[in-house]
């Protein structure tokens, strides 16, 4: 199955843009690149819902829209719920003969990590359990960037945010990030994957696979934020690549809740500190007093990577 899906750049450049230029996302933001990769990977008409967040506010500044396709902004917590309703409505329209039965339409909900890991969590879970045929995409920039860089449950341990400020009391965020991808997979839905935009072939192949399954699918995609992560805006792709090379952000997929495949194994696994060095939000971790934390985080990344390889081995 995996090998049969091909991503051909020559075909893609001829596709019509569904997210058109002129939006106001920051230079270097990972989100528009990811969204375009996703929409270019899908051949059918699409219907989109988007949670409150950077993508929403920046693509729909009155009186303009950057969306060339049906798009609805829902409440912060309700992108998955609104798309559930849309998907159910289209089903009913087909049943009643208002739409051709063989007309394939792809339903996608976009949410940031705040909308996905935190406030919208129960609503995604509900939509997955009900079994709507849709793709949920978490554009994960690891904090509430739209409201000014507050921590979320996707924010990694040790990161500085405006509500987990690094100082004398705490060395940045105290808690570990929530294992969202695994929790989504634990719903035993057909397809869940983790991806990053530097590896567009992998990302787009995952999109094609996700929309082909008969049921819900979830993609968790790392989306760098130069403002919040404190990195130069031309480093976005290099940084996600390093995230994969350090195994901080493994690229993998889980089918039907149990079949794990690790899609990228770095030839030489780099220390996670190399990834941290690229971003100002981790700068304080390199003070001698915080060395223990860096070691702890490295140990956790190693453990999670080993577990992932183990899970893959067990499912083959």
């Amino acid at each position: 199955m995996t090998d049969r899906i091909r991503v051909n750049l020559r075909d893609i450049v001829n596709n019509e843009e569904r997210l058109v230029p002129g939006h106001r996302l920051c230079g270097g933001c990972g989100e528009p690149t990811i969204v375009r990769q996703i929409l270019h990977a899908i051949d059918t008409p699409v219907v989109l819902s988007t949670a409150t967040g950077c993508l929403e506010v920046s693509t729909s500044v009155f009186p303009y829209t950057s969306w060339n396709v049906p798009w609805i902004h829902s409440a912060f917590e309700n992108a998955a719920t609104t798309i559930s309703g849309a998907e159910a409505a289209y089903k009913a329209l087909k049943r009643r003969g208002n739409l051709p039965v063989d007309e394939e339409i792809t339903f996608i909900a976009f949410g940031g990590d705040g909308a996905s890991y935190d406030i919208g969590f129960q609503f995604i879970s509900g939509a997955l359990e009900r079994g709507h045929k849709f793709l949920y995409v978490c554009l994960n920039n690891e904090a509430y960037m739209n409201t000014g860089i507050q921590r979320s449950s996707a924010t990694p341990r040790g990161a500085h945010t405006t509500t987990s400020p690094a100082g004398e009391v705490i060395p940045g965020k105290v808690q570990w990030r929530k294992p969202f991808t695994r929790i989504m997979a634990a719903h035993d839905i057909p397809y869940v994957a983790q991806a990053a935009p530097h590896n567009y072939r992998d990302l787009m192949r995952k999109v094609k696979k996700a929309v082909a399954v008969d049921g819900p699918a979830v993609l968790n995609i790392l989306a760098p934020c130069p403002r919040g992560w404190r990195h130069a805006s031309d480093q976005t792709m290099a940084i996600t690549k390093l995230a994969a090379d350090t195994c901080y952000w493994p690229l993998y997929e889980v089918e039907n809740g149990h079949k794990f495949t690790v899609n990228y194994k770095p030839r030489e696994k780099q220390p996670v500190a190399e990834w941290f060095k690229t971003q100002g939000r981790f700068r304080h971790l390199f003070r001698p007093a915080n060395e223990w934390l860096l070691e702890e985080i490295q140990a956790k990344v190693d453990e999670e990577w080993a577990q992932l390889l183990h899970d893959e081995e067990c499912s083959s």
Partner: protein
Amino acid sequence: MTVTLMQGNAACVEGALRAGCRFFGGYPITPSSEIAELLSRRLPVVGGRFIQMEDEIASLAAVIGASVGGLKAMTATSGPGFSLMQENLGYAAAAEIPCVIVDVQRGGPSTGLPTAPSQGDVMQARWGTHGDHPIIALCPTSVAETYTLTIEAFNLSEDYRTPVILLMDEVIGHMREAFDPDRYGDIEVVDRMTTDVPPEWYFPYDETRAVPPLVSFGEGFRYHITGLLHDQAGFPTYRQDEIEPWWQRVFAKINDNLDRIFMYDEDGIEDARTIVIAYGSTARSAVHAVQLARRRRYKVGLITLKTIWPFHEALIEELAAGAHRVIVPEMNLGQLALEIERVLGRAKVRRVNRVDGELIAPRQILEAIEVA
């Protein structure tokens, strides 16, 4: 001499810390996020606790838990988050849990105008949660008043064992003014009531007291707290002879103390032909409009409300008795005006409204004074 400029949201934080707030549970939302950000830095230093929750439902729930645990607690949000808090707001009113909810209003409904001011949550503050319930809502008009009213909000919540809403707006939250907290050193802070009865005699909802003390969990008092209507021991009840006294008591604790709770300023209303009643940032435009009108020899008075809920009907009736016209400027389509019209009669009241995300200009109010 140095002058410190402070933002309204920062003054709210200073006021909360001064009032003894030691717990904040919240969720980032424009234009209130600075309150969370500052408290995340300040609370740990004073031995308090800051928790960023997963949404606003959880935020107010955590605040209620912290308050029952014995800490003065608050949350801060804006319209969409305030909507999510309504269920727990009703719970806090019914279970009589002291807490402070700051709503820095932005344009609504829904996601609305996140970075623009509004006073659209006036009626939501009063009736956003279901069922009849008493509530207190305060509206500051300046950075300094945000500080004093935040302290007052905590004091009222402790005195009357009730949730108190601090209804700010984007202008007040983000505006910077010269402000020195030391000038307000003599403001009294009300501490949590204690009880001198032994645990076996303690009733958390004692019928014989207007405001029974709430003993913190963990002090050896076993009692029941629930959102179901309850008897004086806190246990659910359907008995009319228990429900009725409960209703009477929770409303009486507020209504019998209107003179303390209902705060306002008045200026030149004795011989005024026209009175402007304003609150929040709109009151600042009203002050200027009244000055301009007086220069043009209009007899105009100004009532600035600091408390909008509960609404002191008798007092407003008395203050406005001599005026021919009452003008109510609001950054909504006329919410508090509904209440003022109910008390003074529709014929007497003129509304000045604006909902496009811009402030009401003094000129707009002046025009209303001139045609009045």
